[in-house]
């Protein structure tokens, strides 16, 4: 871990300014991912701005009837919030599917969104990785890629985003709120927040240096059956092979498919939470899970090792939708 200087920020704007003026500065909140990477010098900031004491740890109702989640709300607290459990169960479920109790107690809402990939080539500084060292190549392509991306990948990077929370937020149409060093606020729909690797896999979000996440807002509750299904070999404390966040309104739908409407987001498959409008449209039009999965998987480019994620996603989605049709919201 390289030496760094450390300060505790006094306000969100001051935090943003402190980071903005130093290209090698980073915010530190929970620190569970940043310090992990700093120990390996995959992240090597010269200055840390501690944002833990800015009071951004509240969950408030918005005038529209939604929720505004402070950036520093811990994953545990977000999952346990009675309003989240009642109205946004998919988010609560996704949060507790991730990491461990200890990590969730520390990890924050904003930090969870900003997690970096768990690709083993990213994690070994001796290996080529375009994300860690642009231009060095992608070690995962042709290497150990079993748990890496199948959608939206590029020839430069097949990393996945590891978050469960973000997948649920994608299904819920969350909005990320930020301010910059000048105090200017910005609202970024979560659909636009994470980027695809393309030829700049080192860029993972649309945030500018020094731009500081203050909150994530959720629109008013959409109702429906909330499911989060995370598939993995180890029963807990493991990243997803594939995950599905679903908010489903059962019903007759347009042509009797048993589903009136559905919102579906997928984890473990791409550089960002994956959501395809056409898949949801097909379901609302009476299409089956297979038809929806086909739309989700259009353009998939798996490796030999992770091609299993295609049938896995199809089958997981079928299982989730079958459960939703039965009107059962509980799932594990």
């Amino acid at each position, binding site marked *: 871990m390289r030496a760094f200087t450390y300060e505790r920020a006094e306000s969100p704007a001051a935090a943003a300014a402190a980071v903005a003026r130093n290209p090698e500065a980073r915010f530190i909140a929970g620190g569970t991912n940043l310090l992990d990477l700093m120990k390996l010098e995959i992240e090597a900031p010269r200055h840390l701005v501690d944002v833990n004491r800015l009071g951004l740890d509240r969950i408030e109702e918005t005038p529209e009837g939604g929720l505004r989640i402070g950036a520093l709300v811990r994953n545990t607290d977000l999952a346990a919030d009675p309003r989240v459990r009642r109205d946004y169960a998919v988010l609560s479920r996704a949060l507790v*599917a991730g990491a461990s*109790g200890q990590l969730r107690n520390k990890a924050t809402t904003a930090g969870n969104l900003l997690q970096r990939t768990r690709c083993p080539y990213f994690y070994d500084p001796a290996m080529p990785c375009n994300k860690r060292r642009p231009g060095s190549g992608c070690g995962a392509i042709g290497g150990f890629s079993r748990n890496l991306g199948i959608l939206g990948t590029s020839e430069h990077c097949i990393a996945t985003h590891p978050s469960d929370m973000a997948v649920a937020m994608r299904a819920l149409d969350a909005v990320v709120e930020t301010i910059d060093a000048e105090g200017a606020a910005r609202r970024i729909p979560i659909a636009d927040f994470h980027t695809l690797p393309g030829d700049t896999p080192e860029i993972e979000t649309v945030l500018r240096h020094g731009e500081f996440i203050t909150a994530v807002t959720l629109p008013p509750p959409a109702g429906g059956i909330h499911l989060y299904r995370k598939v993995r070999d180890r029963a807990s404390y493991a990243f997803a092979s594939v995950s599905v966040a679903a908010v489903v309104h059962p019903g007759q739908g347009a042509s009797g498919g048993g589903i009136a409407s559905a919102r579906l987001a997928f984890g473990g498959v791409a550089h960002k939470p994956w959501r395809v409008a056409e898949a949801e449209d097909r379901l609302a039009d009476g299409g089956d899970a297979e038809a929806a999965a086909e739309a989700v998987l259009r353009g998939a480019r798996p490796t030999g090792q992770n091609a299993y994620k295609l049938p896995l996603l199809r089958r997981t989605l079928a299982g989730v939708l079958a459960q939703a049709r039965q009107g059962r919201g509980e799932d594990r």
Partner: protein
Amino acid sequence: MIDDAHAAPRRQAPGSAMTSEASMAAGSAAAPRLDLRLTVNGKERSLRLDPRVTLLDALREHLRLTGSKKGCDHGQCGACTVLVNGRRINACLTLAVMHEGDSVTTIEGLGTPEALHPMQAAFVRHDGFQCGYCTPGQICSSVAVLEEIRAGIPSHVTEDLERIEFGEAELRERMSGNICRCAAYPNIIEAIREVQEQGA
């Protein structure tokens, strides 16, 4: 340094800790030290630390509280689990300087060999450990898990998010951030159940 757990004068108020960026040259500069005050196992402790020092290393190497273990140093095993302000965290993935004013409880603070905490005693009775290395983390986690269930915090196996029930599945899921390679898992669950039932 044999012992830098001295009572260093506090130079800065909480919330205004800051080291000078200018004081660091690029590359090989020494990290300016920061003063830190925290309560550990009920005792107020003052430290002057390199900001890179994790809470775990502050406990183990500076305060000589080696009960909290370093198994992986990357948040992947749980051996370093301690309670900070009553909540369990991985002490390896947090900087000590982020804990100014916090109250930390380690395994040493739960009980002593002569006066064990009920959870420690239950671990002995149920043989909830073998090599003992993950054990302090398991015990700190166990104590916190019972509180988390009481507080209504859901887990991955909670059937009904509105009503959490004690049960082995709940305990197993919640303890999954604490790896035990000797695999005392079934015995650990029995130990926690016993404490939970006695406390109920």
